[in-house]
């Protein structure tokens, strides 16, 4: 509208006589002045640490000592470290299986909730609780559910005929991995479900009616109407979920500390152990940075996708 002509008006005056008020009201000046404090803040506490982290990964840097530049030695150390490869495998398995379970479970939850029933809003609010409650605190509850001596899960299993004392959930490498995957799924599934439910509610009912008239079965309506329309939301939610599952820390730190014998150690917990436990900041930074290529790819993909949407 007429507003758009204002900056031009400011330009039209001789530069010397432009009052400070008019100058401040130019769109670009106003914008950059407004954005300067948050951008400087992010540059100082995200941009700088990020670059400094790359520098650290190229140093031998014991905690409380000055670092010495060692080139790619830390990465070479990781390359010859069998635990590092175990960690890599763990992280990919954890991310892939948990994401798949969240996707399938979330879709099932959304489809079940996409019906009319009493107290629907209350049920939806309760369903989200695992996602809301601080992860550390709910993980402590899971730890007690899976306790070696007093596990309520094993009490139920024994009741159902499993021989006493029941599986050692956090002591067995495979079961420990299954446990952290299950709890990550438990926590993330409501996010998937409720987001997909919102997507389902935007599907116009006429499409289903038309499909039904054309003789589509329930499965066909799901496969050829629902799924294609949900696809963009599924993609966004999945990218989010993959990024934050891949870099997960707190659940594993609290539940297993990476054990038994590094069976549940992920990049983030391993980097923590090396940097904070063993005090090797440089080596720890190099382990954390190993996540960067995969993460960068995902972040760029999601950023571009979000911008387009």
């Amino acid at each position, binding site marked *: 509208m007429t*507003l758009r002509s204002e900056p031009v008006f400011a330009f039209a005056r001789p530069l010397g006589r432009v009052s400070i*008020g008019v100058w*401040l*009201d130019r*769109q*670009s000046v*106003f*914008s950059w002045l*407004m*954005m300067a404090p948050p*951008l400087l*803040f*992010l540059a100082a*506490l*995200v941009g700088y*640490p*990020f670059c400094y*982290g790359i520098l*650290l990964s190229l140093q031998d840097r014991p905690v409380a000592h000055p670092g010495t530049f060692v080139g790619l030695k830390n990465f070479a150390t990781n390359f010859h470290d069998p635990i590092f490869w175990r960690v890599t495998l763990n992280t990919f398995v954890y991310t892939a299986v948990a994401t798949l379970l969240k996707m399938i479970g979330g879709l*099932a*939850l959304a489809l079940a*909730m996409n*019906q009319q029933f009493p107290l629907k*809003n209350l049920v939806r609010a*309760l*369903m*989200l*609780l695992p*996602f809301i*409650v601080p992860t*550390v*605190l*709910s993980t*402590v*509850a899971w730890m*007690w*559910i899976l306790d070696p001596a*007093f596990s309520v899960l094993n009490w139920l299993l024994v009741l159902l005929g499993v021989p006493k004392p029941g599986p050692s959930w956090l002591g067995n490498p495979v079961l420990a991995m299954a446990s952290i995957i299950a709890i990550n799924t438990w926590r993330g599934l409501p*996010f998937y479900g409720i987001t997909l439910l*919102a997507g389902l509610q935007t599907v116009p009912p006429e499409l289903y009616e038309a499909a039904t008239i054309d003789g589509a079965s329930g499965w066909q309506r799901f496969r050829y109407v629902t799924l294609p329309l949900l696809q963009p939301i599924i993609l*966004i939610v999945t990218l*989010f979920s993959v*990024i*934050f599952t891949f*870099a997960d*820390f*707190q659940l594993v*730190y609290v539940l297993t500390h990476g054990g038994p014998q590094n069976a549940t150690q992920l990049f*983030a917990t391993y980097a*923590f152990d090396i*940097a*904070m436990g063993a005090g090797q900041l440089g080596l*720890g*930074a190099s382990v*954390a940075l190993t*996540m960067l290529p995969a*993460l960068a790819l995902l972040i760029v993909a999601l*950023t571009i996708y*979000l*911008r387009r949407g």
Partner: protein
Amino acid sequence: MVTGHSRVERLVRLWLPVGFFLVLALFPFYWMAITSFKPNSELYNRRVMPLVLHHPTLKHYIDLLTQTSFLTWTWNTMLVAVISTAISLVLGVMLAYPLARMRFAGAGLIAMTVAAIYLVPQPLLFIPLADVINRLGLGNTLTAVILTYPTMLVPFCAWLLLGYFKTVPMELEEAARIDGASRLQTMRRIFLPLCTPGFISAGIFAFTLSQNEFLYALIFLTKSAVRTVPVGVIAELIRGDVFYWGQLMAGALLGSIPVALIYSFFVEHYVAGLTSGSVKG
């Protein structure tokens, strides 16, 4: 016959799956709650049926509040969450408003950068950040986390608010501009008062994320007096291999209540923000 059939169908298609998911979602909280009220004699007795409460006691709560610094941790958590949420909302608005309303070179690049920073997970940054915080002499101060939480919350609030701001009609601002208001006046007096629902959404998310944060608090806060609830519970209620399950569950339950309470008041705002597709999962 027909109603009987549809009742069975409704049971299979609706109540069984919804019931399954609901039990799954809530059982850990139920278990947390009844454990916290059980006396030790019941907790560690395998012959007692564990799913119900036989002799409720408040002992674990009393011990938690008198023998540990739980109240201090709660105060710290609240203080940190409120201040970092406030900082993040203010800085978030300062980023989101120009991006939503102004035309200037570089706007697209800044928006992309903000989105990308929002997606950078903490484990990528915590080691260098720990060193930076140490060099600034901020170890074991709440300032350390009040400064670092907004690194995740500012991009997040900016992104969520940006989406919200774009849905607010521009007519009022245009009218104010024609009446001679400066851009700053227009933003503060005309635009921002229209955006309360957006601030509530962003604020609740920022608040719950602050309450949930663990990694930075674990690294920066190693003294009991400055700890937040998640770190305090993990570091001080688990001593070596000894678990104080009653106290742990009492602490987990009490620590969850503020978030759950605030969430329950603003569920609709929360879900609205969640489904705008901009939340960490």
